[in-house]
Structure formats: C-alpha cells, structure tokens
C-alpha cells in the first residue's frame, strides 16, 4: 500500500512486541492484531552458535 493510502485510510496494525501498544491502539478504536511473538528455537540456536564462533569459543 502506498504511503498516501496509509495516511488516507489510517493505520491497520500488526503489533509485534510490547503488548501495551496493542491495548493502547484498541483504546483508540484502531484495527489491530497482536502477535504473541517468540524467536524460533532455530534462530536462537543459530545466533548462539554464531556468537560462539565469533568469540572463538566452542562450536
């Protein structure tokens, strides 16, 4: 959606993170859905391995 359409229609929001922001958008009658977001185990493990490699530690 073009920026002009975002400004014309108003925000319709996917909230990823702080749940308070979802409730505050609800209070303003905005259309919003909250994502109960968690990093995938795969991502976490990969990050952990990359960090260890960077630090020259165990692989």
């Amino acid at each position, binding site marked *: 959606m073009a920026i002009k359409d975002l400004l014309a229609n108003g*925000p*319709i929001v996917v909230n990823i993170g702080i749940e308070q922001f979802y409730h505050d958008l609800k209070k303003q009658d905005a*259309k919003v859905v909250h994502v109960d*977001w968690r990093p995938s185990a795969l991502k*976490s493990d990969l990050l952990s391995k990359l960090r260890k490699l960077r630090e020259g530690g165990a692989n």
Partner: protein
Amino acid sequence: MQRVEVVRGVYYDSVSLMRVAQELTKIDGVIDATLNMATEANIKIMSAAGFDLSGLDLRPSDLVIAVKANEEIIDGIIAKAKEYLSNPPWKTTEISQQYFPKSLNGALSMLPEANLALISIAGQYAGDEAMECLNKGLHVMLYSDNVSLEKEIELKKIAKERGLLVMGPDCGTAVVKGIGLGFANACPLGPVGMVAAAGTGLQEVHVQLAHRGIGVLHAIGTGGRDVKEAVGGITSLMGIEALLENDDVKVIVMVGKPPAPEVEKKIFQRLVSGNKPAVLGYIGGELEGDRPPIYFCKELEETAAVTAAVVNGTDPDLARKDLNLKYEHLKELASHFGKRKGYLRGLYSGGTLCYEAQLVASKLLGPIYSNAPLDERYKLPDSLKSIGNCMVDYGEDEFTQGRLHPMMDSSFRAKRMIEEAKENEVGVILFDCVLGYGCHESPAEQLASAISQVKREVGDRIIFVGYVCGVEADPQIASSQRKILEDVGVVLADSNAQAARLACLLLQ
C-alpha cells in the same frame, strides 16, 4: 540469600518480564528480583546487578529468574514469579483469555487489510522481522533500538523501492490519521503534518500545538539516525513528500536535532519546491532568518508557537515575542518562590527534552554535565553520579537495558531524586513527566512519593521544578497528574523550555 532458576526453551518479552520483577520487588522480604532471557547482554546486566550466574550453561532461549530475598520466603518468590508469568496480575481475565496469533502470517490471516507493523521486540531480532513485514507489503514502525546502522540502511532502501515507510529504528512515537502509535498523546486532529527525528520532541510539539488549539493529522517518526549522513534522510524525505501531496495537511513541521548538512539541504530544497508552509524545528540549530513560507526555530515550544501562528495566519514573529515575554515573566516567578543555593540537577525520561533543557541551561548557567551532553567534554564518567550542574537522560541505553523505559516506569528516576537531595550542594531538581499512550498509568504518583520523602528530609532547601508533557484527553489526564505534583510542592511550568529556564533562574 540468592536463588536462580532457569526455565529452558521459552520466550517472554522484556516488558512482561520487567513487570513481573517489579511485582516481586513489592513483596516484603524481597531485596531484588530480575527476570531475563539469557542473552549475552542480559547475562552481563544481571551479573553487574550482583546476581551470580557463574557455572550455568545458559542459552538465549532460556529464561533466568533470579531473586535475592529472605531465606524463608525465597522458594515462594520463585513460585510467585512463575505464577505471575502464566497469569499476570495486571491483566484482566478478559485480556488474559484473548487469542493472539504466534506469527506474522497468523496475524495477517486475521487482519488481511493490515497496512503497518509496529515492531518492539529485542533489537537482535527486530531487523529481520521488519524485513519480513516489508516483504508482506507492510509499512513498518520500528520502536526497537539496537538495530545496526547497516540494517537500517538496508531496510530503508528496500522500503523506498517499494514505496513503503520505515519509521525507526528507535522510533518511539508516531501518529497516523490521528491514531497514536507507541508513546503518543491524545491530541486533536488538525491541519498540521509532522516529520520527527526525535520522539519526545514530537510529543512536546504535538502537546504544545494542542495547548494552542491546533491539531495534528499525521506525525511520521523517523528514528534519530535517519537525518545522519549515512542514512541520508530517506524516511524524512519520504515523509515530507507524503505530507506535501496530502491536501489535508496545510503546514508541515519538521522536528529533531539539526540534520547532517547534506540532508538538511535536501529537506530544505524539497520544501522550497513544494511551496507549502513549513516550520523547521531544529533543536539547537544554527539557521537564522525565516524564508516564508519556511520558518526556522531552535526550541520545541517556539516551533509550536510559530506553527500555530502560520496555521492561524498571524505573525510568527509576534508569536516569538509573546513567548519571550513569557520567559521574561519567569524571572518574577523565580523571585516569588525564592532563590536557592547550589547546583541544578535535571532528571529526564525524554531524550529530546533533556537535550533542549541542556541547551537552555547552558546559556544561563554555563556547561552542563550529562550522560548525553551537548559537548563531550562534559560527559559524566559515571551516569549515576552527578557533577556540578547536571542533567541525566534516563532514556539512554545504559538505563533501559534490563529495565523498563523511564516513560513506562519512573521508579528508578524517583530513587535518584532521593539520592540527589542528600547532596547539600543541590538547590534545584528539574524533571519531566511525560504522559500519553504507552506511558506509565500515573508517573506523577511515582515521582511525588519520592519528592514527599525529600521534603520530609530536607524541607525547602531543594525546590522541584517539573513539566507535565500531556493533555487532558491522555489516559493519565494531565490536570490530575499536575495536581499530584503540585500537592507535594512541585513548581510546574507550561513547557519544557520554560521549566528549564525557571529552574536556572531559581538558582542564585
């Protein structure tokens, strides 16, 4: 004694974890409590806070619950932490029972017409998530900080190619068609469109415009780095373009620290060719002399006053003169309250408010020490120990890692007020109290409790000067918050710039 418990393979967002920790520390017998995902940064923070995590095999997908408490209750506190995690006491049953999808795809199947993602997860994940949102055709507001400059540039370049906005990273505030995102005040709608590279700068101008009866339709946040040379003002320029095209926006306001020269030039040139009235509020900037329909301002209240004049078709210079008269009147007000001996100490939750206060105070008092100083020569070696006239920005990373943002929780700042007051050389304590969506439900109460304690201990030796950045329609109700502070003897000013001036004038 200390007890540490590790829960493997779970994830909770930092705000939920900090709220649980906050609840636990209210329990009698609890000395300290912290809950964190076991990222490298969090492990360091917990260790620095005195928790011994040595010998534990921790991974980022582990939750660490660490408690210091009396031996007889410590097991119960760990159990309480787990109970609060599964049934947060601050949530109503109705909220707890709501279903939330676990993924972006799940969210989009529930709300296929979504056009914007508000992302506030840990910085290490936020960039990739933002990219996924752009790939789904969503505009992005990236509240998260700790996203690399390279990632920011990559995201913004891709977004630009697709005609999408990336507000942020580190973008705390935005308003789209009157709807506040993140930290935002419930101000009226009106003919002003803003682009802001400064979160509380945006809030202050928004609020000051509301006080002058002027509304804002859109306020596009950019994140502070957007106007640096490396990013080149990508979001700022896209925002200005959109506001120039929008017929409902009659006046454009840009707020932030002065952009890099090349970016400043591009913004100015586009506004000149756009031929729509514009007010450039570059805080502490050096540009002088208006070039109607473009006006230059150096402070936040001035930006709002000049914008209001432009909207109303009155003389912006007259608006500036009126403001200067108000500032002159503060001298009488200072005499009325009686001058104090000693140093000024400013304790801020808003970064731009702290920056502006330093600009004002440095002209009246000379150099100001800070953890985010105007001049690096006056950087505090230890942000927890003030030197001379000093202002501390509690929104800086060093204070927000492992803690709620000070606009969500003022308790750490309130404790600092008590510490500052113990120093005999302190005469004035200056602070902000920022309201709006996203902020604490009653920051004034948190601060007033500390101020009462100081008053009991040192009487009137110290005078407190505050500014409540908010409006009546905010969830906290500005007049109620003001009353709470006035009832404990705080002298309140009508703007951040006035509060800083008054605080300086109160010193002998």
